[in-house]
């Protein structure tokens, strides 16, 4: 195995694009090293992107935030302003693993690992975040929900790297939340994950919403009918019932040791309702 640690994105892209064999990006390494260790993958080239300055920064841009793809969970937690404006994203990223894992794990890696149960991904989708990539054909932006296609399969070209996530400007009375269900209190993989982002008008009526679900399909889902259940309502009981029904209806889960299909479908509705209520409470305060 060859290890390279370029300090520019162009160098990293060139290294990955020109390697004929299996090449992998190393960000936090908390999934990559486990997969190497257990012989799930055997890369011939590993490109460490942590030496590239723009991937390690959180900056305010165009009224929103740009979060480098290699920023760690611990760094997100320590960014007071990001945490206050996008509490759902930060709490989702901070649910990944232990303190030790938080010291290394990144949202870029969480997305590119290609797990349908990745915690930060539904939160980013609910936020309307864009993934900003750099590849052999230059830079592009795509909605986070369009990055993952299926387990371990991404819509990125060979040599294309996610450089950052662009979070849109936050209107008044708007906030987000993320909840996941696991059978214990800490450090497990989501049975269902749910991100909700919503905006209220001055009278408390919901004017915009996005709802995303994880671990209930082959990839994290943006659930438009669930969001529509909230828009125009005051997020009251009938709207929450419609939200829960729409969330459950969007699920196409598998049975596995963490939960059955029926269980995941039921929990998705319950979780969507609880997540929406947290986002609502936060939106009323800002």
């Amino acid at each position, binding site marked *: 195995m060859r290890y390279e*640690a370029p300090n520019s994105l162009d160098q990293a892209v060139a290294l990955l694009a020109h390697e004929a064999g299996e090449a992998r990006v*190393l960000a936090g390494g908390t999934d990559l*090293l486990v997969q*190497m260790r257990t012989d799930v993958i055997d890369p011939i080239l590993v490109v460490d992107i942590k030496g590239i300055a723009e991937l390690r920064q959180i900056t305010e841009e165009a009224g929103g935030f740009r979060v480098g793809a290699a920023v760690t969970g611990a760094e997100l937690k320590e960014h007071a302003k990001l945490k206050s404006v996008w509490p759902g994203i930060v709490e989702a990223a901070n649910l990944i693993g*232990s303190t*030790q894992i938080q*010291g*290394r794990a990144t949202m870029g890696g969480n997305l590119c690992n290609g797990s349908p149960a990745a915690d930060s991904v539904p939160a980013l989708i609910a936020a309307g975040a864009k993934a900003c990539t750099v590849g052999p054909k230059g830079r592009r932006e795509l909605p986070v929900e369009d990055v993952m296609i299926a387990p371990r399969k991404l819509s990125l070209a060979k040599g294309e790297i996610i450089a950052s996530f662009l979070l849109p400007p936050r209107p008044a009375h708007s906030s987000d939340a993320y909840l996941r269900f696991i059978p214990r209190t*800490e450090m497990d993989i989501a049975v269902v994950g749910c991100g909700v982002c919503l905006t209220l008008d001055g009278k408390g009526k919901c004017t915009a919403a996005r709802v995303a679900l994880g671990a209930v399909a082959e990839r994290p889902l943006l659930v438009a009918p669930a969001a529509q259940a909230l828009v125009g309502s005051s997020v009251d009981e009938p709207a929450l019932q419609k939200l829960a029904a729409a969330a459950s209806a969007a699920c196409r889960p598998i049975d596995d040791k963490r939960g059955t299909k029926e269980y995941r479908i039921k929990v998705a509705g319950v979780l969507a309702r609880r997540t929406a209520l947290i986002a609502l409470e936060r939106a009323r305060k800002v």
Partner: protein
Amino acid sequence: MAKHHVTATVNGDTVEFLCDAQETLLDCLRDQLGLTGTKEGCSTGDCGACSVTVDGRLVCSCLMLGVEANGKSIGTIEGMARGNELHPLQRKFIEHAALQCGICTPGFLVAAKSLLERQPNPTETEVRYWLAGNLCRCTGYDKIVRAVLDAAAEIRGA
């Protein structure tokens, strides 16, 4: 493939070692530098026995390549006592009998020290959450938590 030449600071001392690209920091610490206080448990980042700090950040050394340590400052259990004088956390672990077989202990101590550097007066809940990534299969968690809280009080001079 030529080996990588790594220069790093370990417990304040400059060290150099040669390693293969796929060797973990844990293997480099133990096999290249002879620092066997850092333990190997699961090798998949679940147990915390291999906890070290890298530039002040608590990490699992099994989930980091040795070559990534180039230019970094590493803290291990060997850097905790000053000569023959134990760190208060080490003393309190002994006083509270917060260890049985001892394999998890270096990881717990490194992790607890990292907590107290950030939060000198943690609640029991904060201690439990911070240490949730350190597993003790002798199941001595309660004594460990009490030892950490007692050490924190002593360090604060309370």
